[in-house]
């Protein structure tokens, strides 16, 4: 199945990534000669690159799995899924960001950085070598620091700082972990590691596994390296928050999946348990912390932490069951669609920070509310949305992998998550402003809070929200089609 190949003949296998890179470089060059108000050209170019990359990725899925560049780059189902989801996600997110960055002097650079970050995310997923993982980590991190602070206001730069420092810390941990694994095996390629690691010293392995997973978990926003998620999400602009909580996570979860499935599969350590604990902690902490949030962005941020918990369930059983692969493919796509939708709802009314603000601003737009309801209930896992199908697959896989207790934990967590989503849904649906919430946190009182002000609802985020709602349902109903396309079935 997996054919090893190196040298020049492997280049076609990197076509989707090449297209992304081409889009980035081309976009930057185009931007150099583009007037400030006409940077939508770059947006079009970037979108085209993304769509082309996704198409190329989809076409590539029909080919058999292969490892290229001496095994450092794996082209298989997981890579394919991430390629398509990330590329399409960026194509959408570019337009989600458009209203807030249009005409900005750095608009071109923002789009290019988004593409580069996407490339990093794909590289994370496709990496078949620890060093490539580190490189991909860099590529998936650096552009995002800039994106978080693209507004360059106080909150944005604080977000950038925290993101950067946490990222640097996690990167260092990742390198320590890689070093430990190199010490244990002398090599960095996944297949070689899978062969060498089982005989190595458990202490060294524990350090290595933990370090590597910490780095990946940082990108995924999982406990205990999740601290950046709420702060960065709340500090940056909503479209960028959508980007930061969606794109890198996809690659990171795929990377974790690959790690657990390949090099960490035969270890004398209970890696699945470690991942299961990470999953439990993430979903529980995310849900609990979101429980009484009044800031919509922070609420969504914590919700993404909990979503990563569900995603990590399937990572935990990556090596144990055949059901894991399809489950990952389903949940990743579902998460991307739904999460982008939820953030789009916030991006539609960027000045609204609290639930009350949001309801005041958008409550009259019934269809907007309707789509938001679909997305939020989708995040809960209400059928027939995509996340439901994903959750079903994930639960089934986790149980089949011997982690029935994790399924119960996840089910309980799902109920808990219902609380805070409904705290947003109910007043929005009822169409009346909720009672003023006392003791608003200091975050909500920032410069961008304008409680109760009526404001325009932005068009393109609204359209994206509707599309996400429809997409969430369609993906749920058409799960079989998606699995067929992604070749995961």
């Amino acid at each position: 199945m997996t054919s090893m190949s190196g040298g020049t003949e492997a280049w076609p296998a990197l076509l989707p990534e090449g297209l992304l890179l081409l889009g980035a470089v081309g976009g930057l060059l185009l931007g150099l000669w583009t007037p400030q108000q006409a940077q939508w050209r770059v947006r079009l170019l970037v979108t085209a690159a993304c769509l082309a990359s996704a198409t190329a990725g989809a076409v590539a899925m029909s080919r058999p799995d292969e490892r290229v560049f001496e095994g450092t780059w794996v082209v298989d189902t997981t890579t394919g899924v991430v390629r398509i989801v990330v590329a399409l996600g960026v194509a959408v997110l570019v337009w989600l960001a458009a209203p807030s960055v249009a005409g900005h002097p750095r608009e071109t650079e923002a789009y290019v950085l988004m593409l580069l970050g996407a490339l990093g995310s794909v590289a994370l997923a496709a990496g078949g070598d620890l060093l490539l993982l580190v490189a991909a980590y860099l590529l998936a991190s650096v552009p995002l620091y800039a994106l978080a602070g693209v507004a360059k206001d106080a909150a944005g730069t604080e977000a950038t700082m925290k993101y950067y420092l946490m990222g640097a810390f996690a990167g260092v941990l990742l390198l320590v972990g890689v070093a430990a694994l190199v010490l244990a095996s002398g090599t960095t390629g996944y297949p070689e590691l899978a062969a060498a690691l089982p005989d190595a010293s458990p202490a060294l392995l524990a350090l290595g596994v933990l370090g590597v997973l910490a780095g990946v978990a940082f990108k995924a926003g999982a406990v205990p390296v999740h601290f950046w998620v709420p702060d960065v999400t709340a500090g940056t602009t909503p479209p960028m928050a959508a980007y930061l909580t969606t794109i890198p996570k996809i690659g990171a979860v795929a990377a974790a999946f690959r790690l657990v499935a390949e090099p960490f599969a035969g270890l004398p350590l209970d890696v699945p348990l470690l991942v299961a604990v990470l999953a439990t902690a993430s979903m529980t902490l995310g849900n609990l912390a979101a429980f009484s949030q009044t800031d919509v962005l922070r609420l969504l941020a914590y919700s993404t932490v909990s979503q990563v918990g569900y995603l990590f369930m399937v990572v935990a059983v990556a090596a144990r069951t055949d059901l894991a692969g399809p489950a990952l493919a389903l949940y990743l796509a579902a998460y991307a669609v739904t999460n982008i939708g939820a953030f789009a709802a916030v991006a539609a009314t960027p000045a609204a920070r609290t639930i009350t603000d949001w309801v005041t601003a958008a409550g009259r737009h019934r269809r907007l509310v309707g789509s938001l309801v679909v997305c939020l209930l989708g995040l809960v896992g209400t059928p027939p949305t995509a996340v439901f199908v994903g959750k079903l697959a994930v639960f089934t896989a986790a149980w089949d992998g011997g982690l029935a207790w994790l399924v119960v934990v996840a089910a309980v967590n799902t109920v808990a998550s219902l609380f805070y989503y409904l705290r947003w849904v109910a007043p929005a649906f009822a169409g009346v402003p909720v009672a003023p919430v006392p003791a608003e946190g200091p975050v909500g009182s920032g410069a961008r809070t304008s409680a109760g002000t009526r404001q325009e609802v932005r068009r393109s985020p609204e359209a994206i929200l509707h599309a996400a709602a429809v997409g969430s349902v369609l993906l749920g109903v058409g799960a079989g089609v998606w699995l067929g396309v992604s070749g995961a079935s």
Partner: protein
Amino acid sequence: MTAEVVLQIVLTVAAGLIGVGLFGALSQQSIVMVMMGLELVLNGVLLAGGAAWYFLAPELPDAQVLVVVALVVMAVEMAMGFAVTVAIYRARQVDMVDMATDLRG
């Protein structure tokens, strides 16, 4: 003295660097000083990578490449660190991590 003991000595030095680096990263208030702490940890990684190549797997280039990659990571993070520091200094005239705590909860 066996190679193993030498390896262990070298690695202990690396561990010392990592420990000191962690201490620095956790205890410093200035962004740049935090970065220094992290650099120090990476310094330990450099040492460990070199030791891994020399004592364990000299036949394979992987450990060497690891050192290169670690160096690049250092450079990149340093560059980003400076950029971030400039950005936050311009936005709110602070260079201390404790002074930017609007985002919490």
